[in-house]
C-alpha cells in the first residue's frame, strides 16, 4: 500500500464523517447530502481497495518499475 492508496483514504474518511454529520443534522433536510457523500465515501473505499489489490502479489517493493516520474 503506497502513497496512491494512502491519499485516497482521507477522501473516504472525510466524506464518511460529513455523511454522518449531515444524516444526523436536525436542520435543513440534509439527508440528500448524507446519501451522496456516503455513496462517495463507499466508492472511494472501493477505489482504495482496488489500488491495494492491483499491485502484483508476486512483486516485492521495487521489483516493478517505478513510473512515478513519467
Amino acid at each position, binding site marked *: 500500500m503506497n502513497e496512491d492508496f494512502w491519499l485516497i483514504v482521507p477522501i473516504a474518511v472525510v466524506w464518511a464523517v460529513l455523511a454522518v454529520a449531515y444524516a444526523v443534522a436536525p436542520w435543513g*433536510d440534509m439527508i440528500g*447530502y448524507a446519501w*451522496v457523500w456516503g455513496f*462517495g465515501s463507499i466508492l472511494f473505499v472501493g*477505489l482504495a481497495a482496488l489500488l491495494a489489490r492491483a499491485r502484483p502479489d508476486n512483486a516485492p517493493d521495487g521489483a*516493478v518499475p*517505478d513510473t512515478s516520474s513519467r
Partner: protein
Amino acid sequence: MEQSYQDRFAALGNPDRRLLVGMSAASLVALALGILGGVLTALARGGLIDIVPNTGYRFLTVHGVSIFFYWLFVAQAALLLGFSAIENGRGLMRRPLAWAGFGLMLAGFAFSMGGAHMGIPLLYDGAPALAAQTPRALLVFNLGYLLLGLGLMVVPATAIATLLEPRRAGREQRMSGVGFALFTWAGFLIVTGFAAIYTFLPGTLWALGLGAMPTNHGTNWHIVFHNMHYLPLMATVILWYVLVRHLTGVKSVFGERFSKIVFSMYLVFVPPTSLYHMFLEPDLPGVVRVTGSLLSLFVSVPTLTAFLIIVASLEVHARAQGGRGLFGWIRMLPWRHPAMSAIGVAVLSMGLGLAFAFVLIQEKLAPLLSDTFFVPGYFHFFTVGTVSLTLLAALAVMLPALGGRSLWRPGLLRWMPWLVLAGLLAFGAAGVAAGYLGVPRRVIDVAYQSQAPALWQTLMATVGIGGVVMAAALAVFAAGIAVSLLPRRQAAPHAGGLTVTWGESLLRPASSAWVGPLSVLVIVVAMYGFTTIGFEMMQSLPVTAAGGGGH
C-alpha cells in the same frame, strides 16, 4: 526520450480513436446548441430581439442544459478516457463499458432536449413544481438527466480499469501524478452521476405516478449543483497540469508526490465547503452559518495550490531559458499554440471568477445577490472563460493527434480565446454591476412596463452585446478544433513549431518564482474590493433585498 502526447494519441488503436472522436463530436454538438441558446437568451435579455418571455425561457433552458450538463460532462468523459488511454500506453481497457456509458449520455441528451421543448420551460434545474400541470414534460426532461447520471457512473469505470492495468500487470508500482489525478477525477465523476440520479429520481417517480411531488428539490439540486460546478474546476486544473507539460515539456518542480497530495486535497475539501448553499435556508442555526462561512474560505485552496504549482514550475523553467523581469518570462510561453492562449485566458478568468465567487458566498451577501444577475455575471468567468476554454484547449491537443492532421489555422484560432475574454469582460462587468443594482436573474424582460431604472436596460444591453461577442468567438474556436474531426486530406506535420521544450533545462538552485503568489494576493485584494463595492452599492438601493431559491 519521453514520447509526446501527440505521438501517444497517434499510437492509439482505431477502436479507441472511434470512441474518443465520437464522444468529442457529441460534446461539440452540445456546445454548439448551447451557444445558440445562449446567444438568443442574451439578445432577448438585452432587449435586442423581441420575443415572448416563454420562448426566452426555452432558449435559456436549452442553453443551460446543453452547456452545463452535456458539453461540460461529455467533453470531460472524452478527455478522461483519452488521457487515461495514453497514460496506460496500451489503450483503453473494458471499452464496451465506455460505449455503453456514452450511449446512455447520448440518449440522455436527446431526452433532455425533447423535454426542454415540451410544456413550461423548466430551466436547467428542472424544478418539479413548475411542471405540476405537465408531468409528461418533466418525465421526458428528467429521464435525460437520469440517463446522463447513469452514463457518468459507467464511463469512468473504463478509465479506472485502464489506469489500474499497468499496476495489475506489474509494469508500474505507483501511478504518475497525472495518472493519480485522472483516477480521482474518474471517482468524482461517478459520485456526480449518483448525485444527479438522486436529485432527479423523485421528480421522475412523481411524473410516473409512483411517488409524491418532491418538495425538497431545491435542497437536492444544491447537492448535484455543488458537484457539477466543482468537478469541471477539478478537471480544469488537471488539464492545465497535463497541457502545460505538452506545450512546454515542464513538469512540476515540487515533484509528483506533492501534485498527488493537491489532487487528493481537492476531493477532501469538496464536501465540507458545500454548506454555503444552505445560507438561504431560514431554519439554519447561526453557528452553522458561521461554520459554513469559515469552511467556504477553503473552497479554492486546492485550485489555487494547483495553480501555484503550475505557474511556479513554468516561471522557474522560463527563467532558466533566459526569461527576465517580474513578468517578462510570460512572453516566452508558446503563445502561438491556441491551447496556450486558451489556458492563459482561463487563468485570468479564474482569477476574476474566484474574486466574485468569494463575494457571493459570504453569509451576509448570499441572500442579497443569489437571485440577481450577479450570478450569471460571475459564473460565466468559470463556465466559459475557465472551464470551456480549458476543455477546448485539451481537445485542440487530442483531436488533431487522433485524426492525424494538424490543427486548423492555429494563427487565427490563437486569437479567439482573447476575443472570448473581451466579450466576457463586457458581459461579466455589466452583469455583476446589474446584480449589485438588483437586476433579477431568470427574468427575460427587466423593463417592468418602464418602471425599472433606465440603467438596468443599458446594463442588460451590454450583457447582450458582450454575450454575442463571447459566443461568436467561442463558436469559431470550437469549430476550428472540430475541423480536426474531418477525414484527413494531408499528412500531419508535428506540432513542434507551436510548442517549446523546456523540460530538460538546467534549473538554478534556489530559483525564485513570484508571479504565482502575487496573483493570489491580487485575487484576495480584488475580493475585498468587490465586497466593499458591493456593500456600498447595495446600501444605496431603495429596498432591502431578500433572497429566494439560491443558485
